[in-house]
């Protein structure tokens, strides 16, 4: 795998092992609970429902009894490039009021709700459909008491803005504050991990600094089974997947017949 995380000092990223992923959806629930994502009475309208972490179900398309199902948990990919070699995410490059930015020091693609004008260009530009538009204010009817579980670390969104996975940016702040209070400039591996990675009961999600060779993520992405979604768009996502199943890896991109290369030799 080519080196491509040289930009900033830290490049936070994620590796999701699809062999381990059970499709349980705890990551989705953890993300919604952590980030004050609103739940509406009808979440079956997938055009309107908001899920920063979204689970996709794929099947190998074979007939009974050779059918297999697998899952793709999809957070924001925190792309490093726009597909044309520029060091800017596809969404960032189209946002008129600069409401979304690629942070050079962390690699995190942020979203500033108060700046967002709701034009939804970023949504159109994101090849991974990771961005969601708020058609309504969050669903917190008076007297229902739902607002009581909201976390003050993440501001609830209002109608008319776009939201998405932030790599739980507030958790980075939390870890930094703690480190500074203890007189440290740097945070250790594991001090900053996302809510989804922390919650996964099968330990399928690993989070860390792709630029730090000691971090588990930077070792995992060297696996011959590591890949990214739509790799050939050259958006340089910082979310990687692992799967030993050819049919799963094949489905991660638009391969032409004969173009997909299965892993034949397993090494470092």
């Amino acid at each position, binding site marked *: 795998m080519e080196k491509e995380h040289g930009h900033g000092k830290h490049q936070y990223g994620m590796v999701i092992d699809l062999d*381990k992923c059970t*499709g349980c959806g705890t990551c989705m629930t953890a993300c919604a609970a952590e980030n004050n994502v609103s739940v509406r009475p009808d979440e079956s309208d997938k055009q309107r429902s908001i899920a920063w972490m979204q689970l*996709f179900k794929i099947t190998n398309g074979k007939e009974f009894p050779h059918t297999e199902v697998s899952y793709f948990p999809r957070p924001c990919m925190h792309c490093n490039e726009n597909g044309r070699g520029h060091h800017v995410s596809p969404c960032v490059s189209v946002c008129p009021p600069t409401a979304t930015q690629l942070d050079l020091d962390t690699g995190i693609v942020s979203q500033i709700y108060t700046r967002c004008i709701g034009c939804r260009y970023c949504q159109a530009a994101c090849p991974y459909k990771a961005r969601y538009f708020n058609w309504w204010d969050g669903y917190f009817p008076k007297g229902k008491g739902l607002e009581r579980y*909201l976390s003050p670390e993440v501001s609830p969104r209002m109608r008319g803005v776009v939201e998405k996975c932030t790599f739980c940016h507030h958790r980075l702040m939390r870890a930094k504050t703690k480190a500074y209070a203890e007189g440290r400039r740097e945070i250790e591996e594991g001090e900053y991990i996302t809510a989804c990675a922390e*919650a996964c009961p099968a330990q399928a999600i690993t989070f860390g600094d792709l630029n730090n060779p000691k971090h588990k993520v930077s070792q995992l992405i060297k696996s011959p089974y590591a890949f990214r979604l739509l790799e050939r768009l050259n958006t340089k996502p910082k979310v990687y997947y692992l799967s030993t199943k050819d049919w799963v890896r094949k489905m991660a991109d638009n391969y032409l017949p004969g173009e997909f290369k299965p892993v034949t030799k397993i090494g470092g």
Partner: protein
Amino acid sequence: MSIEITRRNFIQFLVGCVAGIHATPLPWKLTDDIAIWTQNWPWVPVPPVGEFTHVNSVCRLCPGGCGIKVRKVDERAVKIEGRTDYPLNPGGICPVGMGGLQLLYDETLRFPGPMKRVGPRGAGEFANISWEEALKLLNDRIARLRKEGRPQALAAVDGNPRRSTMSVMVERLLRAVGSRNYLNIPGAEDLSSMVGELMQGTEAPVAFDLENADYILSFGCGLLEGWGAPGRVLNAWGLWRSEPFKGKVRVVQIESRASNTASKADQWVPIKPGTETALALGLAHVIIKERLHDTRFVNDYAFGFNNWRSGYGKERMGFKEMVLKQYSPMRVAYVTGLNPDQIVSLAKEFARAKAPVAIFGKGKGNLSGSLYEAMAVHSLNALVGNINRPGGALVPEPLPLSSLPEVIPDDAARRGLEQGRLDQAGSWRYPFTRSLVNNLTEAILSASESPVDTLLIFSSNPAYTLPDGGAFRKALGKIPFLVSFSPFRDETALMCDLILPDHTYLEKMDDVAWPPGLQYPLYGVSRPVVDPLYNTKHAGDVIIHLAKGLGQAVGSAFPWKNYEEVLKARAKGLYEAGGGLTRFEEGQTPAWKMVNKASGSRPGYKSFDDMWKQIKGGGLWYKPSPAERNWEGLFKTPTGKFEFFSSRIELAFSRAAEKRPLQAVLKSMGVQQTGDEACMPHYEEPRLNVDRSAFPLQMVPYEMINLASDWIPNPPYLYKSLFDTQLLKDDSFAEINPKTAAKYGLKQGDLVMVKSPKGEVRVRLNLFEGAMPGMVYLPMGFGHTAYDEFLRGKGANPNDIVHGPKDPLSGYPIWWITPVKLVKV
């Protein structure tokens, strides 16, 4: 747009608008219009800031009992996380547990205080009353029953797990009052206890050392759907796919549908639902024939493997002869729908593995199963001698909790206790079963006047969860007085006359006494994470209060001030047993590893009071114990051996036959076999007594990990994780094979009625290659008529149309094959 991405369109879905990358149109004019959205913000809550703290506790939303850490801001709980300092679930939890705060804070899901019904049953119209008035109402009712000499007309249906202190309390209350009609909702754990009793001689459910096994043969266990203790099993799944286990552990799933477990397993063995027994015995056939069994175990430590002679010198058939004669791969292939080679190779692989384990308990294990089937599966563990060995099936000793002092019934109570149980559990008909809610239902429905006058309902929602075609709901209608202790406005509670709402699990102290299937004893205690939000009372305290109000005789059975004292009294036994630990540190050797070798750790407490302080402060008690014990003296069966041929079953038959012909006994028990087979695990095709030409298909309910289907309401967050081929607006989906659809001229998304002899439900169709042809799969957890706008009126409840006979010997309902037909709407 479909969110369930298929092979063809997964990528197309993602790149649908990929043009945006290459050319960016910036129609500035449009932004003007859109900005109007943003100038119109009515109400967005601003969560108050405050001091961050966290409270360690235990999740009690399922019997699994994960360790949880709840983040708080001042008095508000804002997030539930898994505890890394808990041995069961190091860090992770399931989606239901993750969404628990919605159950605490969604006010419209809950009862704000004690209430009495004012509208018609089920309408949910209640009036607030005081606790004093509420308790007096119930008190008077019970006192009257005792005075009238029919205390047995008080009954309770309880969903608390068997070993829990709450279940002990409810049963105790009934006993002190004078009623034997305590019914616990039956699940896989009860089945497992029966297997333990019949084959191993100890009532403790069989435990499985999954983490140390290298071959897991699962007979329909939803390992990824919430089976056993889900926090533990999902963690084990991750371990099996990590170094050093990666590639060395094989999971084989036997199930008719490509569930998550089946798909993610190393091998999926699809068989016709309900034929698991035949397959297990077919595997036994091959193992014995190929001499792959553990001869030392079956010859020296097992009874009934070889043929044997009874006291009268009569030759009796043993397990070996039975399976060799009756379960050839050819015959089993015919029954199960597999081919004979598959059966042979599966059997060889299982027997040749280093630490193979065969496990049972359908789906999540919330519902009952089949006794002969569970015995057949467990006989595979015995055949390969993997009993009480690392990676095998364990014979656990009971959790050493102290027993509470004996209840001394007064005269009034004694008269009631002389009456038999209404569900006939434990009678000659159902000698090994401890409760049969389905039989209680029958008893009520068949009587002109309900034999139950007052029914208490604890931690369960039987009007929704029982797979009985709606029969229990009808029975409820006949019972004069219904009392719910549920904190939630569930279907059953809405039918009740009196509501005495309990706290939710985040507001109270309660115990988790050994999560199901775990290989080492563990006792956890939840503690109040927040103060009770509403005017609710701990059901344990209510029982104590109630008992005291019923006079000296009943009250003396409850000599405690409050429920916490009861917990403490029971926990004393843990201290006395010695050697348990109360702390688990992150990064410590996993508790399942210590199962291999006796742990050298020191307890870390000085006295019982010290230990109790640690346990109740969000701690726990556990005792890693070496698995490798001698088989000598292990089995407490009448023969002192592991029994392939159950002498207890035989004894039960002959006792019952003292008063009536054996044929009649077997018929009443639903056992078709009349020979020696009846005392051994054997396969019988259930008699459906239905015209199959009118109902040509079979409905099989299935469970999902991201949809609560038990008595706990589904946390609304979880609806985000459902696909729009599982729930679309108000319709849930049935999964059928495209071939079945083609046969009946049905298409993806069609609205159909699924009709059974019991009734019909309306669903949409999802064509799924992973569905066995001829089957109709309905998800459990939809079709609520209670709760709030998040849950109510969404989809269909398969329980409403379940139709089937009883499982032989156990008497549990057979819910996994209902004859149905599909009619397009």
